[in-house]
């Protein structure tokens, strides 16, 4: 188990990713920036949308740091350890963002935890299909959201999920579904030939 942790680099990459997440979620709070958009004119976009990125990218880097054929032909259930690692990342992000939100009275901070769950799920699903290039999926998703995801008046379109308010029921359901599907895909795809 210890060597699995070291092989994944969970003790370094994920810790750095998590610290970056905490730093950003605490520092950005309700900050926003004007970013180019095809559908939204010049309304500012909350920077909190981008906060999950270091953690999601860190998780993919960890999962890709592996001995693929040895793990497939071994007898340890490494796929389940990997699934537990992904769930831990989501849990840590949700708990810490909830605490930050409560401490700083920042509703955007609470949404960062939910958004991490959504982006991890989508990324794991893409990784099961395309492998390592899936690390670009959360970045691409956020770019598409910024460019096409807002209606005039700064209302997020329903498919965007990440800019929805923390109270949005459909965003919560979509995040939970993405999370479950992504982790299931991760376990199933681990049986594929590397």
């Amino acid at each position: 188990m210890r060597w699995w942790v070291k092989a994944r680099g969970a003790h370094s990459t994920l810790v750095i990713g998590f610290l970056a997440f905490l730093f950003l979620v605490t520092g950005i709070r309700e900050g926003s920036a004007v970013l180019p958009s095809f559908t939204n004119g010049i309304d500012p976009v909350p920077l909190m949308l981008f906060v999950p990125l270091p953690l999601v990218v860190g998780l993919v880097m960890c999962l890709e740091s592996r001995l693929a054929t040895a793990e497939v032909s071994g007898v340890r259930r490494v796929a389940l350890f990997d699934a537990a690692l992904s769930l831990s990342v989501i849990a840590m992000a949700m708990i810490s963002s909830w605490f930050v939100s409560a401490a700083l009275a920042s509703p955007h901070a609470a949404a960062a935890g939910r958004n991490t769950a959504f982006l991890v799920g989508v990324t794991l699903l893409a990784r099961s299909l395309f492998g390592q290039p899936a690390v670009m999926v959360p970045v691409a998703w956020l770019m598409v959201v910024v460019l096409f995801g807002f209606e005039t008046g700064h209302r997020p379109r329903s498919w965007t999920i990440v800019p929805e308010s923390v109270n949005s029921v459909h965003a919560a359901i979509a995040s939970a579904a993405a999370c479950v599907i992504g982790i299931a895909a991760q376990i199933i795809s681990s049986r594929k030939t590397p």
Partner: protein
Amino acid sequence: MTLEMDSCTYAYRRWLKPVLTDFSWELPQGLTILLGPNGAGKSTLLRLCAAVTLPRTGTVRFQDTPSRRREYRQAIAWMPQNITPIRGLTAREYVSYLGWLKGMNRSEAWTEAAHALKRVELSELADTRTTRLSGGQLRRVGVAGALVHQARVILLDEPTAGMDPRQRRVFRDLLRDLADDVQVLMSTHDVADLAEEADNVAVLEGGRFLYSGDTAGFLSHTPPGTASGRRAEGAYTALLEQG
């Protein structure tokens, strides 16, 4: 008491031409060298035997245990063609991790990793990170990984690539030593160096054997007039030309 492939068919994708079709073979005792040009199916055959992948049809078995079973996987050791260095692991940790993956407990894997590294003369680099090892040193780490859990069958995919001549010598001695106790199947392009030391030779092309049998039989295909140091190479070339 051997590794058998029974009517195995395997294609990397359903719509692609199979690499192996209805392929049956029994791995002989001792050291067997698997020869063949690039794309002949050597790595596929080894990956099937190593349970890295399962055949689409047919079975791979060791002592009647199919390759999907835990007992099979513990009986087989495997060294892939590409050894991936892992940033966080030293050579000893890397080998220990491979042992742990095969079901060894932590202290057993740690102890046996030291022995395995000693056998490939890499003890002095045991605490060096694998990202700092040369290609040849990494291959020796890979060989140590195949030795760590006392497997009954050892599968090596081009293990000598990148090794210097002295290390090849050490490796050949190690192979001879191993083959007394376990079955060893090794793919290589190093025909001249290794084929004459093997107990058996198999030549694969296009997913079928052009030859599979003892080394004397293989060498009997050597064209007349071939220099004595090039008999294996001559026999291999002759077999490929005969098709």
